[in-house]
């Protein structure tokens, strides 16, 4: 009768798993923090929080866009390259290399607007490619993954652009009420996305398209438009992230801006508990996922784990975190 006993495992178990699932990411994060408090030299300082916040911002911003894309059942490999394009474009503008500037401030204003719009446009192009020709997202965005960085490098001839423009660099270095401005940006974006996903028609449409495209179409949802929009949004997010990166470094290096960002962002989304198969999404989860990944990176560096070993540990933690997330979905 042991078998029958094994089988007779009703409600309680499932609920326990439900909890785990809901708080899986939080648990993982808490464990990491505890570990650091125990082992990492002077971890419990404001500066530590500061460092981690500023470092995680770009990942989160990109990952939010990625979350929406993934919720429609897609994926966007081009984000890193789009960051590079935006990052390479901005200095060209405010340094007046691209177009003559009546007034420096105009240049700075344009340096915010144009690059983000451009990378947004490229994002939309991804969406167009994917919807117009029914190309698999992975391949459709692979095109710009390859060509995008090339474009950025061509723009600058691969040269490093250095600058000191406080007004512009405010998005990277500035602070409001002592909080890094980029962190505020990040929180605003996370908030917006969460709200949109929960409350708006667009949010529902995203999930429906990701959940069952044919059904969505037959219910009158403009599948194509929804997809193009999420890729557009992903592009905009990438553009913004690109600007932040160059602002912090007071230098734009088309070769390196956002290199490998797509993987970080996707990992954050997955660790955060969004299904890569689409049809479900949690932006807050993504935020947690990004924090986890960031904190792992910090922990490994701060404790002097050599790069090679760090890679292995990272792998283990990603799998573990995602597995925790999966529990209860089973």
């Amino acid at each position, binding site marked *: 009768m042991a078998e029958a006993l094994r089988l007779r495992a009703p409600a309680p178990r499932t609920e326990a798993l439900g909890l785990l699932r809901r708080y899986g990411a939080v648990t993982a994060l808490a464990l990491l923090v505890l570990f650091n408090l125990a082992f990492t030299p002077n971890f419990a300082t404001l500066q530590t929080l500061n460092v981690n916040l500023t470092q995680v911002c770009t990942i989160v911003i990109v990952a939010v866009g990625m979350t929406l894309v993934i919720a429609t059942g897609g994926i966007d490999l081009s984000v890193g390259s789009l960051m590079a394009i935006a990052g390479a474009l901005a200095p060209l503008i405010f340094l007046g290399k691209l177009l003559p500037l009546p007034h420096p401030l105009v240049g700075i204003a344009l340096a915010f607007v144009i690059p983000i719009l451009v990378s947004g446009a490229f994002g939309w192009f991804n969406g167009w490619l994917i919807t117009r020709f029914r190309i698999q997202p992975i391949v459709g965005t692979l095109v710009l993954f390859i060509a995008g960085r090339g474009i950025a490098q061509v723009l600058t001839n691969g040269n490093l652009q250095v600058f000191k423009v406080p007004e512009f660099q405010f998005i990277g270095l500035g602070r409001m009420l002592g909080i890094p401005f980029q962190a505020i940006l990040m929180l605003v974006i996370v908030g917006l996305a969460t709200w949109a996903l929960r409350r708006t028609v667009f949010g529902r449409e995203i999930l429906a398209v990701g959940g069952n495209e044919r059904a969505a179409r037959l219910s009158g949802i403009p599948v194509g438009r929804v997809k193009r929009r999420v890729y557009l949004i992903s592009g905009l997010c990438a553009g913004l992230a690109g600007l932040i990166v160059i602002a912090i470094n007071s230098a734009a290096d088309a070769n*390196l801006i956002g*290199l490998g960002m797509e993987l970080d962002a996707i990992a954050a989304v997955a660790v955060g508990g969004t299904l890569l198969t689409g049809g479900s999404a949690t932006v807050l989860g993504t935020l947690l996922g990004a924090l986890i990944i960031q904190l792992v990176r910090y922990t490994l560096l701060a404790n002097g784990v050599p790069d090679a070993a760090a890679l292995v540990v990272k792998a283990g933690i990603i799998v573990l975190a995602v597995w925790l997330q999966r529990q209860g979905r089973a």
Partner: protein
Amino acid sequence: AAELPKLEQKAKYKVGFAQTESNNPWRIAQTESMKAEAEKLGYQLVYTDAAGSAAKQVADVNSMIAQKVDLIFLAPREEKPLIPAVMAAKKAGIPVILLDRNVDQKLAQAGKDYVTFIGSDFVDEGRRAAEWLIGATNGKAKIIQLEGTTGSSPANDRRKGFEEALKSHPGMEIVASQSGDFARDKGRQVAETLLQAHPDATAIYAHNDEMAMGAIAAIEAAGKVPGKDIVLVSIDGTRDALQAIIDGKLGATVECNPRFGPKAFATMAAYAKGEKIPAWVKNDDKFFDASNAREEIANAY
């Protein structure tokens, strides 16, 4: 083994330049210098870019051989995996001149398998950085090392040279050593973290100027003063770096000059004439610090 292939004298040559990658200012300057010189001489330059893959670089060299170039300038991605390329060229009767990195001497020798190696000595660069730092801190410092891309030979050599030079100075302690991928952004993030974990650090040694620039940003973000609270030394000698020295933020940087063009083609001409070429045409790299930064910045890259 067979003889080293000769190069007959011609007015115009078709030469190949197999570049490793083009993703940092140093490489870009090197490529520019090679192209400029080739243009000046009116030679045809077959330029390939291996995008950081030794394997692709060998394939690139092979495609040059297929195109029957007269001579190949090769900037090896790594010491060992490029041996087959060198040998293939030799077999095809095309002389090879190595730039800025050598190949494994156990497997191929200058004057026998390839003409010569033109370049600096990464190990020595590391040593010179160390010696300056020892002087600047009179032998007492807690050092954070920002390494280059894990596994790349300049990273390995610059680390080797630096650490060997420190051995004899117990006061010089490396408290943390992590990779910043030769990149400013990564360098900054790593520096931020390490400074946070090791507030007692008094010096930073970066394997290249870009990471040093990142480190400076990190130090300032941490509310400390670069050059005073924390002494920095690095390698390359970029214009940025020299400016930083002038601003008193960067202590010193060991030059690693990317402008190979003139010397490379001169060596080629000499070889064509049949002159004897030394196994290693050393770049006499300068050393930049507060004493000479001002006058040198003009012709920095």
